[in-house]
């Protein structure tokens, strides 16, 4: 009864096109939520406020959404490997303080301190979560408190560290500069996203991130060094927090130890609205890019209307709940094969 391989294939009917449709398109719907919400918010505010719908305001929103976007893409990488990072807000605050001090002593080259601080805390989180098997909530909560305390200690008796003359001028000009109408900070953010997209989709390391997120046990069984990949994911997230510090320095011109309160929650909202699934395995930088744009558009729109910022906070809360619902619905779509 030794059926040859060839004719056995004929027996089995090829999968219907329907299932390709289901997974080709539906698999991607989670990533388009970010774009959809951004468009809806932009259209709604443009309709109510004449000045909101101008190209000039688009540039304004683009110049403001950078920090949140870069933090969110960092958070996305960690959520991809089934973790998350509560310390991003405190880490970038510490990074602004240390970088401001470094730039005041060593000039522009001090800017390199920002990503360094981010990488140090990213490594700490990664090692705690992988090798010491500490749950992400506790590990990153610990480093949140550590970074917040360190930021206040690093700043001379808790005071803000003001950037010296020339360093501030350079950063300030960068903040205001734009190329063909598009603010430099937005271009900086887009470059970060393109690099992350390249790492995720085109490199073996990126594929390993998806593997560890999809099923860590299987990843180990096929020879992926799961601990190393987890540490790298947290380090990348810390690196993004460091980059955010540069953007904030450009905007405020000083290292403020108390900056970034609540940014960890907003960055998580950005990641989740951008299509990431908390159970890991799913990530799309462009979904997150537009989710961050949606959050900033909403905040700017509400600033236009002058109603209290707490309305923006409530909208953010609602969008996290909405993202939770979509997370559940898309899980259900996948399970029914």
């Amino acid at each position, binding site marked *: 009864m030794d059926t040859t391989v060839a004719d056995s294939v004929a027996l089995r009917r090829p999968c219907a096109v329907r299932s390709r449709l289901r997974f080709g398109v539906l698999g991607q719907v989670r990533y388009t939520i970010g774009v959809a919400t951004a468009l809806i918010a932009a259209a709604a505010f443009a309709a109510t406020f004449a000045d909101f719908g101008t190209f000039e305001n688009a540039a304004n929103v683009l110049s403001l959404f950078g920090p949140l976007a870069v933090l969110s893409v960092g958070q996305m990488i960690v959520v991809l490997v089934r973790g998350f990072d509560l310390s991003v807000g405190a880490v970038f605050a510490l990074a602004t303080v240390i970088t401001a001090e470094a730039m005041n002593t060593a000039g522009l080259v001090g800017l390199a301190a920002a990503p360094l601080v981010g990488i140090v805390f990213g490594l700490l989180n990664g090692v705690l979560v992988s090798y010491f098997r*500490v749950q992400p909530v506790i*590990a990153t909560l610990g480093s949140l408190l550590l970074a917040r*305390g360190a930021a*206040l200690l690093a700043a001379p008796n808790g005071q803000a560290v003001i950037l010296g003359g020339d360093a501030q001028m350079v950063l300030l000009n960068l903040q205001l500069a734009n190329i063909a109408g598009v603010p430099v900070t937005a271009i900086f953010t887009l470059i970060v996203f393109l690099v992350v997209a390249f790492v995720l989709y085109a490199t073996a390391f990126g594929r390993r991130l998806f593997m560890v997120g999809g099923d860590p046990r299987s990843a180990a069984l096929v020879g992926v060094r799961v601990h190393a990949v987890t540490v790298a994911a947290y380090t990348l997230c810390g690196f993004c927090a460091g980059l955010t510090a540069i953007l904030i320095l450009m905007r405020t011109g000083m290292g403020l130890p108390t900056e970034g309160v609540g940014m960890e929650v907003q960055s*998580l909202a950005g990641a989740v609205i951008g299509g990431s699934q*908390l159970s890991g395995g799913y990530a799309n930088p462009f979904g997150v890019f537009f989710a961050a744009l949606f959050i900033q558009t909403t905040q700017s729109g509400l600033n236009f209307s002058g109603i209290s910022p707490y*309305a923006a906070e*409530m909208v953010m*809360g609602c969008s996290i709940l909405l993202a939770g619902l979509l997370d*559940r619905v898309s899980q259900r779509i996948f399970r029914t094969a």
Partner: protein
Amino acid sequence: MKMADLPGSHLLRRLPVSIWGLVVIVALVALFLPGFARIGNITNVLRVGAILALASYGQTIVLISGGIDFSIGSSVALCSVVTALAVQQLPLGLALTAGFASIIGVGAINGLLIAYLKLSPFLVTLGMLLLVHGFAAIVAGGLPVEVPDREGIHTLSGSDLLGVPYPVIIAGLAAGALYLLLERTTLGRSWFLIGSNLAAAAATGIRLRRNIFLAYVLAAVFVGVAGLILTSRVAAGEPNLYPTLPFETMAACAVGGIPLTGGRGSALNAVIGVIVIAVLNNAIVLLNFPAYAQLSLLGIIMVGAVIAQGMPSWTRPSRIRSL
């Protein structure tokens, strides 16, 4: 009656070994730090600790049933705002019940979304953190909403019975109530089973949705009591009343040896965790460390305690040998 059959014995058996390390440290601090053992200082530590303890009891219930709750910081703030607004028309008693009811309301909404809509507890409570805080801030508006002193608002948090502040007594009674709820009721036992293995709990016929919903509501009861004490202490409606409360309760539970993955934990764990954190915070103040160092030290202690607890499990393979 073997040791194993003593009523509390299974609780003691389940405490990770690292707890005793922490208890020793606390004892050392108590003995050698000048000014620590003074009655005034002890009551002060316990009074602040009591509020954290009550909120931690709520977090313990949620953690045991396999969930997590970030929204308690905002719900205690909402309680203070609702109480402060209600007291202008209603007598203090009714106003406080309105505040308490608002916390139960937040707990019920969490329960509904998590139990019946099956959403992730992490996302729901984070969303509620922002929603409730925003709502409280808008409703409170500008001027701090005062609770006039004539109503005796301060008795709940300020005065004491035979030298022991009311909040400490309430926290003690609540610890007993939590023990009974967790260890001696079928609802409490179902939380352990749900937290340990949700699918298995379903197969044994445990009413998942109802019990998970009740977990968030009963957790809100404990947080509600903490909210009332905080409101009486501050005597005003403050949208930013205690924003770090959720993180501190998680730190207390973690230091106390309650795993965040669910299925294990007890009132004793929570109490020990809270005492350790309250004492070490106080030590920092007494040693005149700059207040900022308190933040960093709390972070280091918390992670250190969790790593210490992780240690023994490295040798015993916890995975079920199903092969």
